[in-house]
């Protein structure tokens, strides 16, 4: 025995060393692999069964786990949705949407902010990743707002928060990954995420409008002479919105109407994205080729994390690590409400140094067995986490969303200004989680209607 530690103690040691090792900055997939193999070698060390020192069962387990990641029919949807997202973000649709909606919304306070948020929301229904949205909007909407006299902090917050909606509103790579980790139906997760996603977008819009209404100097109204006649606005809106709406229907409609699996809808969506870019005359060989290469790269990035983490968690669970957590949480005698608050605070804190992939693949599995203990609906819990992970893009030091915006507006905005602008949106996300806790139907109503009698 390792320094006469019991197996569960070794499991805790393994988790501790892993947390430290992550901070060394080595690619996490391989850090997990190393921890899994190293501690697995210890866990499975048994002279009776070993012919020589390399004859340890951990190696078989590792290879088997690798194949298990390859042999997963739900995960096939991931490259397809990624492909669709890459094609759409190169189709030039964001600019068209933003300018059309901005005209249509001109009567509202903070009309450009509202337009930016609606554009982000619509675009979120066609892509399951972020990054592109923040940078595209950061190049289009941010300068437009600032030029019109909007407060920089206010404009930055809008872009950063709005740009992250794509990971929550289906189709979402995050929810597919979650469905595999928690063994939930991806269709139900998609259905469950629609209203929380729209609620969050709605709260953002309400916030923008209210603040501009209370303090018009934050977001001055556009001069009347800039507004084209109504028919022209309508035409702009139709040209930009209808093809995208078709694509959304193709993907989300088919999934939620129960006609297709996520992978089938994603394949149809990717094909639809090709048609869409053909329609907008942005279908270039270069774009297509890059979308193909990026799809493979991002797929591999996510899936190698799976390979590492399944080996890690197999060993962790073999050593009895999960039972330690279960035992700890049941022994401290907390209520369901307290359990939810504690887990969400942990996820929130993990979102500072880490990104959603690592949090989901490595840490969420630890909480999942506890849901039954505390009698928490797994879909409800999933939605709390999905909302919570929005903050992982927004909280420093690893606030990817802020970095993307800073990246495209290097000399025009300070990182600190962006963070100040983001703060209210962090509050809104937490308020959104509170609302969902009070009214779980926001998440659970739609799947109930769609999937049960």
């Amino acid at each position, binding site marked *: 025995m390792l320094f006469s530690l019991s197996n569960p103690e070794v499991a805790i040691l393994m988790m501790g060393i892993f947390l430290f090792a992550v901070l060394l900055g080595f690619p996490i997939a391989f850090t997990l692999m190393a921890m899994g193999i190293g501690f697995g070698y210890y866990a499975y060390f048994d002279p009776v069964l070993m012919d020589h020192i390399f004859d340890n069962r951990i190696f078989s*387990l590792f290879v*088997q786990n690798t194949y298990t990641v390859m042999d997963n029919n739900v995960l096939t949807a991931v490259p397809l949705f990624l492909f669709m997202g890459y094609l759409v973000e190169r189709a030039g649709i964001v600019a068209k949407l933003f300018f059309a909606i901005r005209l249509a919304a001109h009567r509202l306070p903070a009309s450009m902010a509202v337009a930016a948020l609606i554009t982000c929301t619509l675009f979120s229904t066609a892509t399951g990743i972020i990054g592109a949205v923040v940078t595209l909007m950061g190049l289009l909407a941010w300068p437009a707002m600032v030029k019109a006299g909007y407060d920089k902090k206010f404009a930055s917050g809008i872009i950063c928060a709005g740009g992250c909606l794509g990971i929550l509103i289906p189709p979402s790579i995050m929810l597919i990954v979650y469905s595999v980790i928690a063994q939930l139906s991806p269709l139900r997760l998609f259905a469950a995420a629609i209203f929380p996603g729209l609620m969050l977008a709605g709260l953002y819009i309400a916030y923008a409008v209210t603040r501009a209404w209370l303090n018009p100097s934050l977001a001055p109204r556009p001069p009347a002479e800039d507004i084209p006649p109504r028919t022209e606005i309508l035409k702009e809106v139709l040209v930009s919105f209808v093809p995208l709406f078709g694509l959304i229907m193709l993907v989300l409609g088919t999934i939620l109407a129960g006609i297709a699996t996520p992978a089938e809808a994603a394949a149809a969506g990717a094909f639809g994205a090709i048609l869409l870019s053909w329609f907008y005359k942005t279908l270039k060989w270069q774009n297509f080729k890059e979308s193909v290469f990026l799809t493979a790269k991002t797929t591999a990035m996510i899936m190698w994390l799976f390979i590492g983490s399944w080996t890690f968690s197999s060993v962790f669970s073999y050593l009895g690590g999960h039972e330690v957590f279960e035992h700890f949480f049941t022994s401290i005698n907390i209520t369901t409400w307290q359990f939810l608050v504690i887990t969400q605070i942990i996820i929130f804190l993990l979102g500072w140094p880490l990104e959603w992939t690592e949090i989901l693949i490595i840490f969420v599995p630890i909480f999942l067995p506890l849901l039954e203990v505390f009698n928490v609906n797994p879909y409800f819990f999933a939605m709390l986490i999905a909302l919570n992970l929005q903050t992982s893009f927004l909280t420093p030091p690893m606030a990817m969303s802020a970095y993307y915006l800073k990246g495209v507006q290097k000399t025009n905005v300070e990182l600190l200004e962006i963070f100040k602008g983001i703060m209210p949106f962090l509050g809104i996300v937490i308020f959104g989680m509170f609302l969902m806790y009070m009214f779980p139907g926001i998440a659970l109503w739609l799947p109930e209607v769609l999937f049960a009698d």
Partner: protein
Amino acid sequence: EPQQKKAAVAKQETVTLKMQAAWPSGANIFFEMAGDYCKMVEQMSGGTLKIDLQPVGAIVKTSEIGEAVSSGVVDMGHWVTAYWYGKNAAASLFGTGPSYGMSSQEVMGWMEYGGGRALYEEAVKSVGYNYTGFFAMPMPAQPFGWFKKNVTQVSDVKGMKYRTVGLATNVLTAMGMVVRQLPGGEIQPAMKTGLIDAAEFNNPTSDSQFGMQDVSKHYHLGSFHQSQEMFEIPMNTKRLNSLSPAHQAILKNAAYAANSDNYFKALVRYSKDLVKLMNEHKVNVYQTSDAILAEQLKGWDKIVGEFSAKDAFFKKVVDSQKAYAKRTMKYLLMNQPNYKLAYENEFGPIADVKI
């Protein structure tokens, strides 16, 4: 040190084995049955042999259990042989193959006394597995399952998207059904959303634990697609041989004990859940029509013929089963009175009996 070892043997040191089941924990009767076996082993050994039972996915996924046991990643598994039919189609025959009149009980008899075990061991070896198998739980025939309506004709099911596993996929494909593979938890939502039109899992208890009654009200009992099956409990051979003779005997004989207990429990629970399905959930329960059963048997003949033609080992196994079935079932079926007659004598026509 040798002295120490002797002392340890003398006081029978406590051994803990890891078992991974193919079933989820929580409300799942198969997981419960795996647990019953583990409990028996512990009791029989006076607590010196313990089995740490893990649910599906805890260490490896379903399809990897055989490899995990062989390499010793876990010491034992709890699943069915149909789960390794991709490695050798004959695997399905050691659990859920053609009936030839046999129920699970007789297939298990063939395994132990009809030459089945030698063939089974050959099959295990042929796919590179390194384990010794115990068997338990003579499953009642698996229902044809859940449909959108009462299906009676073969034409009713032609082109229908249906979920099953093992050689049954080939049989029902041969019958003109479009067989799709879905993980257990996906069956119910897939059915609700029209991804599949029909599905089977295993029995009234498991099926209702999966929530099938929420998506279909037409349940068809009695089918030849999986008219017999039992759990396979693979045990890493090297690990088995490292145990004391007493422990080895306990692992083997506890499987026999679990075999009876599982079956008794199944009958009580399956029938209770059938009552629940009919009365609480208003599920219509039918017996699969003779027309469909006959077509299933034709499907089996076709599939067995095809596999036998291209795979000599498959043929050898089927021939052995046929020879065993021909003799034993002649006795059993001729000797067996028509039990239904006695039932109906007391309770009236079976279709009308309210339970």
